[in-house]
């Protein structure tokens, strides 16, 4: 009895290991491709090198990954892989591109499970919600929805998702400011 179950489990493990090694590279490649595409999307017109930095804000538990973008050794901006825990469907992650002065160049959704038809309008191909951030600087553009006294026009019937999106962009901006400070201190 035990023997049969052991044999089955070992065979299953062997099979899984084989498939894992077969799919490891394609999965990694597709994730990398997704990341590169997102960087290109949020930093339009950028061609240069990126350097990955991790920053954790004092009030957060998880760190944010910043792809600091350099052109000829000069800081161009950053594509920040940020997240929020306040989404309607739990945490989601987005990428925000900043130029070196902190102006938002673009935003893109990386991984979200917001409600189809409502919250998923945070995706650029579903509505123009995410485009309103472009060209704004969080210094004078308050990253809060209108209802909370901010400058962001929320998605109709998806205030929670809109608030979460602002939260993620704010986190990206704060991390970028922090990373920039560290960068110039070096």
């Amino acid at each position, binding site marked *: 009895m035990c023997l049969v*179950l052991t044999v089955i489990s070992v065979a299953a493990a062997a099979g899984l290991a084989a*498939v894992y090694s077969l799919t490891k590279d394609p999965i990694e490649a597709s994730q990398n491709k997704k990341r590169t595409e997102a960087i290109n999307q949020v930093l339009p017109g950028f061609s240069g090198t990126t350097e990955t930095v991790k920053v954790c804000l004092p009030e957060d538990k998880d760190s944010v990954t910043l792809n600091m973008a350099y052109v000829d050794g000069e800081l161009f901006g950053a594509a920040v892989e940020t997240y929020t825990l306040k989404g309607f469907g739990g945490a989601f992650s987005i990428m925000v591109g900043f130029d070196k002065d902190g102006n938002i160049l673009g935003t893109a959704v990386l991984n979200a499970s917001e409600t189809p038809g409502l919250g998923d309008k945070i995706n650029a191909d579903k509505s123009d919600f995410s485009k309103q951030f472009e060209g704004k600087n969080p210094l004078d553009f308050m990253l809060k929805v209108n209802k909370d006294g901010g400058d962001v026009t929320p998605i109709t019937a998806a205030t929670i998702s809109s608030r979460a999106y602002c939260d993620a962009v704010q986190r990206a901006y704060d991390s970028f400011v922090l990373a920039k400070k560290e960068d110039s201190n070096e």
Partner: protein
Amino acid sequence: MSKLQILTKGIIKENPSLILVLGMCPTLGVTTSAENGIGMGIATTFVLLLSNIMISLVKGVIPDKVRIPSFIVIIATFVSIVDLLVQGFVPALAESLGLFIPLIVVNCIVLGRAEAFASKNGIFDSMLDGLGMGLGFTLSLFIIGACREILGSGAIFGHKFITGDGILIFVLAPGAFFVLGFVMALVRHIQNRKKSSQLEKR
């Protein structure tokens, strides 16, 4: 039962989600669009087919006491394989189905068919049964997904035919129950009419 009957019974007469009412989690959860329904259906069909074949192959050597654990190990392995393959080669589908692929493992249809059919029948019959059940599941998920997409977002396969929003509730959780209820009622109604007309003929 003829081979053809084994294959087709899963599609209508014993349709897993509409008649047997198994696998309600994906039926209600992923059917926000026709495309998601078909994707989930195909992934489940694949797992059903492989697990039915495998279980009917090893049914002779598995002692009764560890039957269920063995089935679960086999099913879980195939689900993980499908999950890895989808992530590796169809990333777009992996994105829209997300968490639901690993959840195939707890889908009652897969274990149900292993228990009720594959552990008692030959390989070929089990294969047909898995395929038929999978196709039936895919069909019902497609119907529910298409209804919800048409009513909820005014689109089919992502192509919008109205401007603005549809009746949003159909994309949300309650809409899944509404549509499932109506589709089930319709199927039962057709079945009952068939039955009564057969009785009259006699």
